[in-house]
């Protein structure tokens, strides 16, 4: 593990690019559809691509389209975007514990590219994350999203119906592919994921919370509860500062 330090940035960057391939594939159908929907909503190609470039957040971009179509005011759209994306605060705080120390400039730049997907891939990597890796991972995902949105707008169509349908599983399959190997490592992770899934299902099904908050609250509840239970179990035993 120590010799990671000797590997240069180029290889780390490449590793990040490779790790992002599943994300890039998964973004294609969503980005194409976004471009298509943006066109039907009445955005120009410039606005469509610019939104993908500047916002880079799938769920909230989709949401903004339906709000625009409804004639919602700008402030409300921005506020909704904020609420939908507040969960990334939690993700960044978690990733911050895992990345190597680097200049603020680099951290600020790659933090721009943190999405549910890039976070999931990065956070389930073992060991410290290098700046090069983060750049590679986020860049390939970003490129897929921006280019996909543009192409979707221009060709005015998504993928063929059947492929579009079956590709809608891609990002979820990726999440599952990232989660399962970790679940094999211990019951704790099974509990963490299971609890959060249950909480989130309850919150969204009952409509108590909007989907943006539901994910945040479900994640936090599960992470805190499991940590408390672990702390209680450790009491009595000698803690080894793990």
């Amino acid at each position, binding site marked *: 593990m120590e010799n990671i330090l000797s590997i240069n940035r180029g290889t780390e960057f490449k590793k990040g690019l490779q790790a992002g391939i599943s994300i890039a594939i998964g973004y294609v159908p969503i980005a194409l559809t976004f471009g298509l929907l943006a066109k039907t909503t009445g955005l120009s190609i410039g606005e469509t691509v610019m939104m993908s470039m500047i916002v880079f957040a799938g769920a909230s971009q989709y949401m903004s389209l339906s709000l625009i179509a409804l004639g919602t005011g700008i402030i409300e759209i921005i506020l909704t975007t904020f609420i939908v994306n507040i969960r990334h605060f939690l993700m960044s705080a*978690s990733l911050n514990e895992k990345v190597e120390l680097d200049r603020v400039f680099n951290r600020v730049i790659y933090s721009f590219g943190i999405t549910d997907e890039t976070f999931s891939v990065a956070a389930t990597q073992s060991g410290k994350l290098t700046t090069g890796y983060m750049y590679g991972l986020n860049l390939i995902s970003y490129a897929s999203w921006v280019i996909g949105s543009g192409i979707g707008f221009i060709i005015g169509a998504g993928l063929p119906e059947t492929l579009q349908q079956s590709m809608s599983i891609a990002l979820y399959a990726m999440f599952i592919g990232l989660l399962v190997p970790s679940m094999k490592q211990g019951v704790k992770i099974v509990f963490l994921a299971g609890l959060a899934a249950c909480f989130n299902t309850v919150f969204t099904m009952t409509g108590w919370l909007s989907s943006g908050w539901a994910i945040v609250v*479900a994640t936090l509840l599960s992470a805190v509860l499991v940590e408390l239970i672990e702390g209680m179990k450790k009491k009595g035993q000698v803690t080894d500062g793990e």
Partner: protein
Amino acid sequence: MIIGMGAVTFIPRMLPFIMFRGKELPPFLQGVLKNVPYATLGALIFPAVLYIQEDIWYGVIGALAAFIIAFLGANVIVVVMGAIAILSAYSLFF
């Protein structure tokens, strides 16, 4: 509007990297943050995966397929491709 949306998206993503830079957080909080990725994955998958198509079986079959392929130890890309392939087969027949 787009710039406003970009700003409110970027700020939560960026703040922790500046606020907590090189700081040692209390152990309990560190533990919670280490738990976050797995909890997030659980919440990201359920219940959203059930609603990817109107036909709820689509999500169920896709998720199951992904789970089995991943459980067998396959690489993430293989999991993604496998799930897509199985769903393509499913939509051909149903």
